[in-house]
């Protein structure tokens, strides 16, 4: 990402309040993969490891078992550190055209740092992992329950 856009995003999303964080004693998650049974009611349609990217990314598409038009795109970025995960979170925010992503600050918010767009997009960093969950089909669902499940899964790793 170019410096100008990064500067804009840091300011717009008040990155100084959350970026960097503290390196916790919690171990970093390595080699995250979906097995396909993680999300009840959803079938893993496709999973692809993009290791040409930095950080490496897992791109996955999930189909709801009840509707072919209900799809979720779940991207997982595996970073080398917590700080780099926060940098990646900012990078991810730079791939949304809207500037209306909202930081989630409630006590029960996802991950270490989280953003959302209504309940249709969840974007959060947990330790060194960044998760982006979006609707990809015409029939929309709330991504929050899925995000909570994945957050818990990553926290257990």
């Amino acid at each position, binding site marked *: 990402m170019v410096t*100008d856009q990064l500067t804009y995003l840091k300011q717009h999303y008040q990155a100084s309040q959350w970026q960097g964080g503290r390196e916790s004693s919690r171990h970093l998650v390595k080699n995250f993969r979906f097995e396909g049974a993680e999300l009840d009611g959803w079938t893993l*349609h496709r999973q692809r490891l993009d290791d040409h990217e930095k950080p490496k990314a897992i791109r996955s598409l999930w189909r709801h078992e009840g509707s072919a038009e209900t799809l979720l795109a779940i991207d997982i970025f595996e970073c080398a550190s917590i700080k780099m995960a926060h940098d990646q979170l900012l990078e991810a925010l730079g791939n949304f055209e*809207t*500037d209306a992503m909202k930081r989630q600050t409630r006590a029960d918010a996802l991950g270490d740092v989280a953003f959302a767009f209504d309940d249709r997009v969840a974007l959060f960093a947990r330790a060194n992992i960044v998760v982006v969950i*979006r609707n*990809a089909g015409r029939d929309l669902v709330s991504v929050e329950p899925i995000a909570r499940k994945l957050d818990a899964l990553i926290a257990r790793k």
Partner: protein
Amino acid sequence: MIAVEAIRFNHDVNAASHDALNIRENASGFSAPPEWRRFISINPEDSRAAYAIEPTLGNAITVLASLSSTDPALAFAEIRVKERVKARPVNFINGKSGFVAFDLVDPPTAFGRVGVWDVAWHWQYRPGPRDYWRAFDVTRHRFYVVLGVPTSPWNQLPHAAANTQLPWTDVLDYACRWAAGAQTRDFAAALVTRAVYALGPSLVTYDCPGGGSSHYSWGHFDCTAFVERLRGGIGNGVYVNCSDCATIVSTFANALGCDLWQSRMGWGFALNELLAIGGHNWQTACGWSAFSYHEVAWENACASGDDVFDACLRVDGDGDPTQPPHVALLPQDLTFGNPGDLLYRDRLATPPGRANCNPQPATRQRRPVM
């Protein structure tokens, strides 16, 4: 009996001035020439060749054909494809000719237009110049014609299975149809832009639910998924954003020999009302007041004086883009412009927003295809 054993349309992988371009089917499919093989190639799509107009201009285009004869008494014959391939004498040694060069008559590039054609070649022979021509074989082929050698992300070398950036016939199948008839790069890019916008709302629509995020172009261009979507499959889903549209337009247009980039403008600018891809209502994008950034297919240095092709949205093309009534204008070869020019920038951004809607040529890129 005489038969065609194999045909090579791309017989010089280091040049495209007398033969076909280096191509592959898609990210996983690669076949080395000969493009046509006896008993294997049946339908036109089994034997594909792409020709570029510009480098072949004024040159004879040749194909290499290997023939066989089961008639031990036939050592020599004239061979041709009526109205397609010039007649030439062919020697058979132990029933085989080996690869011999034939000049094309009115090659696919002769019309000077982008297109894709399925052809049937009716092969004929005659033992001597006073004999009648006799039919002996029919071969079927698909020919793509592009304006110039495809530009980045596409490349021509190395001509090897590992090079996934060789032009894909999966892409040419669409790009050559979308831009059929185009004789200039600008016209071809404009037609591609129009075709991509017209994919909405049936195949794709702007990602309002997801805040306008990239579904096909985050990192590399997931062209495989996009082609799957074009063919009626799931792909990466129904939603696209500006980066996706810019990447699709520039990648497909560049396969035709255009020279477009994906480049951004920004940062954080208020919008006039517009018609997003797949949408029917004039509104600021999805009702949001502003874009954090916007990305388009852009020419040259991707600066104010350069032209953009935006398949993501239609702007108001009348004398006052800041308020109704609106006249829908798809930005095709429209100069970006400076505030007050009433060009692309003024049509996209509100008067106060224009100061933040600046070309960001440092973001200029051509995402690799995957």
